[in-house]
Each structure stands twice: as C-alpha cells, then as structure tokens.
C-alpha cells in the first residue's frame, strides 16, 4: 500500500523492468553486477514506495531510484573516490568496462553496435539524458527530476551528448548514419 493506493507488484516489475535494466546497462559497466543491482533497485522501490506521493510519474520516480542505486553501487565497488557526490559522478568519465562475451549480439547490425558502444563511452551526464530522452521517451523535465539537475542543464547535456556521439560515430557520405 502506498499514498497513491495498493500496488500490484508483479505488474510493477513487468511494467518497469525494461527501464530499470536499460538504466543499469547504460550506467554500470560491470555486467556481472547487473542482476544484483536489478534486484536491489526493486527492493529499494519496495522500501521507498510508501513515501512516493505521486507528484511525478511512477516511471520517472523508479528511474530516479534506479540511477541512484547504480551510483551507490559504483561508489561501493570502489571505482570512484569515496567522497564523490552524485553530481560529480554524473559529470565524470564512464566506468571502466569489464570484458564480457555478453557484449556480442549477432542479431544486431554493426552500425547499431557502434552506436551502442559509443553511447556507452559517453560520461553519465551525456549518456543518461540521451538514453532517457531518445530511448525511454522521458521529457526534459522528467530527466531533470531523475538526474536532479536544472532543465537548462538537461538540454545542454543532451545537445552535447548528441554532438559527442556524432563526432565519435562519424557521419558524412560514408558514415553509418547515412548508410
């Protein structure tokens, strides 16, 4: 039971697991840890849901819980300086990747793999707004809420994220974007 009524937990998991996994996938490079974080996010949701007042969409709030859980994991794992705040982490470089065979997905086209890879190479402050806006369909305002930054910052990071992706992936006549 929450302030907004009773909760169908199976439904909540089914409706939001894609969003949660996507955010973990974009944020934490250590794939071995993904399942643990995935479960931790929903346990955190269970714990915090009684305090959810319904001022934002449930999916926006769950995205925020997911991003914070990822951040806490990264801090705990010792990849980052202990004193680093959430804001500093967003601004920083992406986590070092852990090599994994799971990276390969033969069904995906090469162009998509390149774009995926370059998106993964962006700093969280750029990768998260890009993923949340173009893949999850969140509005600028919702992204601002999830990442706890002003609206103008979201736009600026989104703009620079797109520019950075373009630079890394390449364009032009032979670039994959026109291929």
């Amino acid at each position, binding site marked *: 039971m929450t302030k907004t009524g009773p909760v169908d937990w199976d439904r909540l998991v089914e409706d939001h*697991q894609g969003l949660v*996994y996507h955010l973990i996938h974009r944020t934490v490079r250590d794939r071995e840890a993904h399942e643990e974080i995935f*479960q931790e996010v929903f346990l955190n949701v269970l714990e915090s849901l009684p305090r959810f007042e319904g001022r934002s969409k449930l999916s926006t709030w769950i995205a925020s819980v997911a991003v914070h859980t990822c951040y806490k994991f990264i801090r705990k794992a010792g990849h980052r300086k202990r004193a680093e705040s959430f804001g500093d982490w967003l601004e920083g470089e992406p986590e070092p990747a852990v090599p994994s065979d799971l990276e390969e997905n033969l069904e995906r086209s090469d162009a998509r793999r390149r774009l995926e890879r370059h998106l993964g190479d962006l700093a969280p402050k750029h990768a998260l707004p890009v993923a949340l806006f173009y*893949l999850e369909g969140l509005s600028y305002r919702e992204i601002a809420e999830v990442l706890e930054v002003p609206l103008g910052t979201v736009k*600026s990071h989104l703009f620079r994220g797109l520019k950075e992706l373009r630079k890394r992936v390449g364009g032009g006549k032979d670039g994959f974007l026109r291929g």
Partner: protein
Amino acid sequence: MDFCAAEALKLDYVNGRLSEKDGALFEEHLAVCPACRGEVLELRETAAAMAGLARPPVPPAWTAAVKGRLELKRHAPARRRASLFLYAAISAGVTAAVVLLFWLGPRGTSDRITWFLSLPSLLFVPSIIDNIYRLVRRGVRRTG
C-alpha cells in the same frame, strides 16, 4: 538573438519542441546560415539513429527472481511478528510450567534445600524454549 550559439534552441528544433513562431524564426536563420544548417542536419541524423536503438532485453530469469525476492521481503515483517509471538508464547508457557513445578513441589526443610540446589537447572530453561520453538517451527513448515 544569436541563433548560432543557441544550443537549447537547436536541440528543441531537432526534437520538434519549438513553438511554431520560434521554429519559423529559426528556419529564417537556417536559410542564411550553412554552419547551423549542417549542424542541425547532423544532430537530426544522430537523433534519428538513436531512436533506432532498442532497449537491451531483460534476461527472463531475472523477472521471476526479483518477483520472488519482493514477495519474500513484503511478507518478512508479518513473518517476523508471527515468530516473535510464537517465541513469546512458548517462553511464557515454559516459565509458567517451571514456576508451577516449584510451587507445587514438596515444602519440608530438606526439600527446600533440594529446591535450592536445583535452581541452576533453570539455566536450561532458555535452551528448552529454543528447542520447543524450533520443533514447533519445523512442524508448522511441514504442515504448511
């Protein structure tokens, strides 16, 4: 307005978030500014390519696992309360039985001494409570 430096405006234009009026104004600028035209085109292509990406699929086993953990966690407080109640009931029962035994026991002087000497046996009471509690829990689990 310096359209060339207006990042947010370009982004809104690419994402279709500009008002009709602002859009028309910006398009007037685009018509005379090849640098901005090129930049907008690139941004638009990148955004379109992004939209073509898909979410990574959630491994199917994870859904069942997380639902199971949530189920366990949701019922944990009720289970803890039930365990506490059971433990308290057994403790009260055993304590009452011990008190009753001493109360109803022989009352002569030598019996008093025996009673006094048997006091250390009270140390076993918590262990008796624990064992009864475990037995009851095991029985409940089997029948459940």
